[in-house]
């Protein structure tokens, strides 16, 4: 933050702020209060203005849990910064709480000295009770001590602003209170209202009264900030001045990026994209996103279950499409038998696992990284499969393409891991120049001369991908033990061992095509942090912080989990200690220890929440002192 607030009592933790060069704002209210929309608008405006941004929405598992309860809360956190940031921030400095439950659930996360804006009107006896308060915390000095609290009668002021809009019911008017709150936030952070006003015009085009109401409420909120003297100061996060690559940017979530990446891959491969899937949180938006893109020859199939989904994808791959399925924990388990068939049939397909909190049904709307071992080993018999993972929401685009490329080049199913955090959180994305993305080469053999179903490419060991419909190349494949080259069923002991080793070698050779790993920090030193997946941002921020404090720390983020990059072993050997932070109980740690002569320290968390930067910083400090 450029201008720290003048007074002591409002002292937003300036050290932290300086460190991160950012402000973190959290909106929290009932699921029905429109918090996601409010947060989105606030974020878009800031992004368009030129801040770096990163968001983290947090939904309840219920569709609409009872209003006013803790279970019914929906939150949206955004981090705005004048320079590169990597996460949605550890702790908000500003909290907008639409009701007592929102206050109760979020206050303890707030930075000391942070700003709280509460909707005073919502502090009714009933709501207080639902949030577990005996009496109003607003009247309890000790409860709010150390924060700058603003009690704003959001509901009544919104109603007042819309008083003469006779066509709207009171209920409808009350729905506009998020616009009022947003207007106030715009004032507080000195943001223009244009983007949001345009959004209202477009979104409610068919209901001019609603446009009017929201517009008025938004402006009223802004005006309230300007006229009241309650706020000690505005806060302004300057636009980025650091080295931002030039180009056109948009915000994107991980799920959106997967959708766009898959469509791009299909176009680059000149293929129909077949997507067979069964809805499951948090993967469903991929199905929904692709269903709307039929114009790109995307064929989506909502199957009767995950087993049917993987089956359909195997069939589609056999028939020649770029074939993809996605799911989350429970659904991924159900696909394992099918994936094994694809491994043995040696057909290209992509399985996206949007990891969520487990085990079992677990925490469907929360994030975790605990499916790594399961996707590596969760099938009967020896069945190696490539596994890659995206590090950031935007990178999901590139990794989706990478997954398709590997699948096709090596004729293999492949796992792409993302997670609930990446899926829903958003960050700026520099739109790629499509011309610069390399085509995905696909070859479909048509020559019957000398054809055998399991003849292999010398470099990759891939077998030919032959399309049914091709005369003279008719062949049969299945899941039984088989002979190499001919693909004929075989129970011969040597054939069996040969095929198992050959498939393993084929997957191992994916490593021949990987770029060298990047190390962020010194080439050798005291501590190396190895990360993978959606923890990238938190690790990167923590490492840069520690480096700035003079520590000999580097980090290296794995996108390829199987096979592991060839240079990993050497890199590991150059540091005195290795730390592996994971949102699981130590899965990558185990793999590294099994494979390399190294003991690693794990930093493990399974709380359904991403890492906070300070959790990693503090672990680094522990290790190095």
């Amino acid at each position: 933050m450029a201008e720290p607030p003048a007074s002591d009592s409002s002292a937003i933790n300036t050290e932290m702020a300086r460190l991160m060069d950012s402000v973190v704002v959290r909106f929290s209210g009932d699921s029905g209060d429109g918090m996601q929309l409010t947060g989105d608008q606030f974020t878009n405006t800031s992004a368009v203005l030129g801040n770096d941004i990163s968001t983290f929405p947090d939904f309840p598992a219920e569709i609409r849990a009872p209003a006013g309860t803790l279970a019914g809360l929906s939150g949206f956190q955004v981090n705005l910064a004048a320079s590169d940031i990597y996460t949605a921030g550890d702790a908000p400095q500003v909290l907008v709480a639409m009701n007592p439950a929102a206050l109760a659930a979020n206050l303890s996360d707030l930075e000391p000295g942070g700003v709280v804006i509460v909707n005073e009107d919502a502090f009714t006896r009933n709501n207080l009770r639902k949030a577990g308060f005996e009496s109003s915390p607003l009247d309890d000095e000790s409860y709010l001590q150390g924060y700058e609290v603003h009690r704003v009668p959001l509901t009544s002021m919104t109603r007042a602003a819309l008083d003469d809009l006779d066509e709207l019911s009171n209920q409808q008017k009350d729905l506009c209170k998020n616009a009022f709150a947003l207007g106030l936030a715009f004032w507080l952070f000195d943001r223009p209202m244009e983007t949001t006003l345009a959004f209202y015009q477009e979104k409610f085009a068919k209901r001019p009264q609603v446009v009017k109401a929201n517009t008025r409420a938004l402006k009223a909120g802004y005006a309230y900030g300007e006229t009241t003297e309650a706020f000690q100061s505005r806060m302004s996060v300057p636009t980025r001045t650091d080295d931002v690559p030039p180009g056109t940017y948009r915000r994107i979530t991980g799920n959106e990026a997967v959708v766009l990446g898959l469509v791009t891959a299909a176009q680059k491969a000149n293929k129909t994209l077949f997507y067979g899937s069964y809805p499951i949180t948090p993967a469903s938006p991929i199905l929904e996103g692709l269903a709307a893109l039929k114009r790109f020859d995307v064929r989506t199939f909502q199957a009767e279950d995950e087993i049917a989904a993987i089956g359909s994808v195997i069939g589609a791959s056999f028939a020649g499409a770029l074939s993809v399925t996605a799911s989350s924990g429970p659904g991924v388990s159900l696909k394992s038998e099918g994936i094994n068939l694809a491994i043995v049939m040696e057909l290209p397909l992509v399985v996206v696992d949007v990891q969520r909190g487990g085990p079992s049904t677990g925490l469907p709307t929360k994030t975790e990284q605990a499916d790594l071992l399961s996707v590596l080993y969760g099938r009967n018999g020896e069945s190696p499969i490539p596994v890659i993972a995206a590090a950031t929401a935007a990178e999901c685009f590139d990794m989706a393409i990478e997954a398709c490329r590997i699948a096709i080049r090596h004729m293999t199913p492949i796992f792409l891991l993302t997670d609930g955090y990446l899926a829903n959180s958003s960050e700026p994305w520099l739109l790629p120049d499509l011309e610069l993305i390399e085509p995905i080469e696909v070859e479909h053999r048509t020559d019957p001369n000398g054809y055998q179903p399991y003849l292999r490419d010398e470099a990759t060991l891939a077998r030919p991908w032959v399309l049914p419909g091709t005369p003279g190349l008719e062949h049969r494949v299945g899941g039984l033990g088989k002979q190499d080259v001919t693909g004929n069923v075989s129970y011969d002991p040597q054939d069996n061992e040969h095929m198992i080793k050959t498939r393993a070698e084929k997957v191992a050779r994916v490593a021949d095509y990987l770029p060298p790993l990047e190390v962020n920090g010194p080439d050798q030193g005291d501590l190396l942090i190895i990360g993978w997946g959606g923890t990238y941002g938190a690790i990167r921020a923590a490492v840069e912080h520690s480096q700035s404090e003079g520590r000999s720390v580097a980090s290296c983020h794995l996108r390829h989990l199987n096979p592991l990059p060839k240079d990993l072993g050497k890199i590991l050997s150059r540091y005195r200690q290795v730390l592996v932070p994971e949102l699981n109980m130590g899965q990558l740690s185990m793999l590294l220890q099994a494979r390399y002569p190294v003991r690693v320290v794990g930093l493990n968390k399974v709380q359904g929440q991403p890492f906070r930067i300070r959790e990693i910083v503090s672990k680094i400090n522990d290790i190095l002192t």
Partner: protein
Amino acid sequence: MTDTVEPPVIKPPAGEPSPLTRKDFVSDQEVRWCPGCGDYAILAQMQKILAEIGVPREQTVFVSGIGCSSRFPYYMDTYGIHSIHGRAPTLATGIKAVNPDLTVWVITGDGDGLSIGGNHLLHCMRRNVDVKVILFNNRVYGLTKGQYSPTSLPGHRTKSTPMGSIDYPLNPISVAIGAEATFVARTQDTNTKHLQETLRRAAAHRGTAFVEIFQNCVVYNPTAWDHTTDSSVRDDNIVYLEEGKPLVFGRDSDKGIRVNGMIPEVIDVDSNGAANEGLAVHQESLDNSSYAYMLSRMQHPEFPLPFGVLRCVDRPAYTDMLVDQVQQSIDSSDADLNALLHSSDTWVVE
């Protein structure tokens, strides 16, 4: 079949005479069923009718699950997948969604198709995916050596039911009709001509064609179909369905089916078997599936078993509609990938 009721000959779809022969459809793999297994007959007739119909081999895909019957694709010189237990309809759906020009056959058993795979079959039929599903019903699990199946009769003693089965069996035809199937037929492994004609009819249907074939597992359930194969009784136990013809059966065509309320009953008919009052007349294409359902409830020994096409109605195939929607979208909008990436608020950094 000479001294018995001739099964009705169903007309093959019109077309050019095919240049293919049965041998064209025989793969180089050694057939590995037990000697005497009913699967051999089905394989032979399938190869025969495909050659006659003349769909090119390369346009044909056989997909199966796991079971004795599911070895079928290995023996067909077409494209083929021997997939996993119960899941063949799902692979078939994916294949058709990508390439609707292929002719896709699903080969399944009473265990594969109705036990582990029941749900996929159900959804395949209700969606009317354009595949032909051939269910080899031998009322037993052959490949795993003789446990009872969902079509085994109550009381059936098998390895897993030493005191007799207490499961009430599924009627595959009733299930298919209840699942909105558009084509439902029944035939028998050794009833050569009828089998051929039924397969032909299935091949000609656009949408899910469900065919139950009574198949003899000589090792684990050899007497299951005696009542429909033993020449001394079979004519009393089968009623051949012919479009527009009354339901008449018996060695001397002396019995018929009348429907009273919703309940069928067996009546004697005039020896010439023709215009008896009250006899049900077969109509395979009724929009309402209640009649077909009623036929499916005719079970041995109270009733003769209906053989032939119980139901055949037109309804757009899922896979065709899927491709239509896609084509419609392609035709009506501009698929600009770059514009798609930009389809959200953007900002420029210079």
